[in-house]
């Protein structure tokens, strides 16, 4: 482990509210778009046929999903750029950083607008016209160059640097892999196509998680005032286990496909132990920091703890879903959606927001109280939202296993209505909570600038 002098530590973990902020502001707007399109989609579950001819579900869903993915990607890029600039003093190339941002903005705007015109990629789940992948790929290559050149070499680097380097490379590889369907040899066999598709998409999530979890370890170091975690054996064990999961645990998506059985066994065995280790690290860290440090970083701390709770909840579902005998019940039901929502909102978004509050370094008491209130509202509503999806999923699983041929799909969906209503109401309340958080943050920055 490298022992830094006090002034070196301060420099490495200094506050920098310039680099990455334009990424974060656009990402926060995308987060609000995600919520808006999510609510519109939820309304279509409660009132079937709503907006059927003007804004039907095949448009609303990709708008919701792409906004969510871009919120995660753009904010993760902004945070990594920001933290990297603090760790290394500056980014290797400001030009690449700016170009990456412009390319992302062009891609995001074009993709979102294309859905309104009914132009789709049609892949499950993140989809847009393949041409629009070109600016994303280019932007990501710029990002990789900047990350690697800024870091310089592998020698004696903390674990978060390894995670950022791995995350950026794996995201690009899996993103490119998800376009193998453009080659007829991959597309024309539907089982092969779906296997490679879910291999790539499953690992892609692991790629961006590497960026987010890496940043969380950097933040843990910063709050605790020591680097012992990021050089610890447990942190590197987490990293390699996470990487192992990223590479091989995607098979649970396709257990029901006619594929060789060893694909099922490999995924089953690898499972999702990554989250368990992260939860353990955060737990260890939480008990080790003193009250003064906690209060100085109170907002980041609260969001990290919130993410910790969701790691445990999502972990329970993830482990269950990785067992084929249970997956057979959960597959194709809203339990899968509950898992995704828990992971993207409860873990990814709360972690990302904890980085955002760290970067904007808020200490005004009134602002802290308002944001904390927004967090509590979101947490309570999100739990009801998650629970509604799980209950709807259990009922659908029962239908799939016992009444598939006797009760029509439409009748089954009608019985799920009460849970769709509670999911909609909880979704609206959670959105209000997140809106309060984002609006307060924007307001704080406007006031600070003026």
């Amino acid at each position, binding site marked *: 482990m490298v022992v830094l002098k006090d002034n070196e530590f301060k420099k490495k973990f200094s506050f920098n509210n310039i680099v990455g902020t334009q990424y974060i502001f656009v990402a926060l707007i995308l987060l609000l778009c995600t919520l808006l399109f999510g609510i519109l989609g939820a309304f*279509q*579950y409660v009132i*079937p046929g709503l907006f*059927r001819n003007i804004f*039907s*579900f*095949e*448009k609303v*869903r*990709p708008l919701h999903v792409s906004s969510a993915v871009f919120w995660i990607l753009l904010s993760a890029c902004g945070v990594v750029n920001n933290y990297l600039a603090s760790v290394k003093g500056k980014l290797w190339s400001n030009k690449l950083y700016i170009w990456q941002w412009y390319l992302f903005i062009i891609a995001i705007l074009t993709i979102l607008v294309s859905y309104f015109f009914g132009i*789709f*990629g*049609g*892949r*499950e789940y993140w*989809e847009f016209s393949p041409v629009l992948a070109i600016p994303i790929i280019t932007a990501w290559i710029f990002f990789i160059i900047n990350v690697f050149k800024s870091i310089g070499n592998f020698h004696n680097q903390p674990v978060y640097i*390894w995670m950022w380097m*791995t995350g950026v490379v794996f995201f690009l590889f899996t993103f490119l*892999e998800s376009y*193998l369907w453009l080659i*007829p040899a*991959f*597309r*024309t*066999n*539907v*089982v*092969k196509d*779906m*296997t*490679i598709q879910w291999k790539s998409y499953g690992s892609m999530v692991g790629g961006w998680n590497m960026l987010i979890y890496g940043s969380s370890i950097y933040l843990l170091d910063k709050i605790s005032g020591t680097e012992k975690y990021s050089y610890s*054996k447990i942190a*590197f064990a987490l990293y*390699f286990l996470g*990487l*192992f999961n990223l*590479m*091989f645990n995607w098979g649970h*998506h*396709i257990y*029901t*496909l*006619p594929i060789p*059985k060893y694909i*099922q*066994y*490999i995924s*089953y065995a690898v499972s999702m132990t990554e989250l368990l280790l992260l939860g353990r690290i955060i737990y260890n860290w939480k008990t080790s920091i003193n009250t003064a440090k906690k209060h100085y970083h109170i907002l980041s701390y609260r969001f990290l703890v919130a993410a910790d709770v969701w790691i445990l909840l999502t972990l329970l579902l993830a482990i269950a879903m990785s067992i*084929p*005998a249970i*997956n*057979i019940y959960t*597959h*194709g*039901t809203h339990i899968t959606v509950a898992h995704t929502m828990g992971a993207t909102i409860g873990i990814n978004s709360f972690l990302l927001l904890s980085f955002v509050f760290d970067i904007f370094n808020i200490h005004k008491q009134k602002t802290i109280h308002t944001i904390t209130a927004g967090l509590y509202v979101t947490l309570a509503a999100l739990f009801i939202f998650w629970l509604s999806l799980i209950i709807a999923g259990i009922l659908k699983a029962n239908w*799939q*296993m*016992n009444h*598939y041929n006797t009760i029509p*799909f439409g009748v089954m969906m009608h019985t799920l209505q009460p849970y769709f209503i509670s999911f909609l109401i909880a979704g609206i309340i959670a959105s209000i909570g997140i809106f309060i958080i984002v609006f307060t943050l924007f307001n704080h920055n406007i006031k600070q600038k003026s």
Partner: protein
Amino acid sequence: MSDKIKVFVLLGLLFLFFGYSFYLYKLNYSPENSATALADKGKKLWQAKNCGACHQIYGLGGYLGPDLTNIYSTRSKEHIKAFLHTGTNIMPAFNLNDSEVSQIVAYLKSIDATGIAAPSRLKIKNDGSIER
């Protein structure tokens, strides 16, 4: 943990990952799922209209509409065509012509060849795995 060990573990994992990836790319998947030219056009059309936003294939896709993996063998061809032409009170009519409708039907036929929509048709084994 020394840098040498870290690099060694990383290279080992990368070797396994790329080996597994390229093995899967080359693997001979169920040949009965190989699409005809018509079914391939149907698949592209399925994607262009974003049918997967609402419908599932092999249990993968959206949740608003029913899983269509075995629709070809459970409903008549005419029934499927009628739905595609007129839409439903939830699904909009996509204004498909006869040729496009035939392409989608051919795609659904190719999926039906090996796909199982009802999970109750899969067997749960004692080791926790599942079997067709």
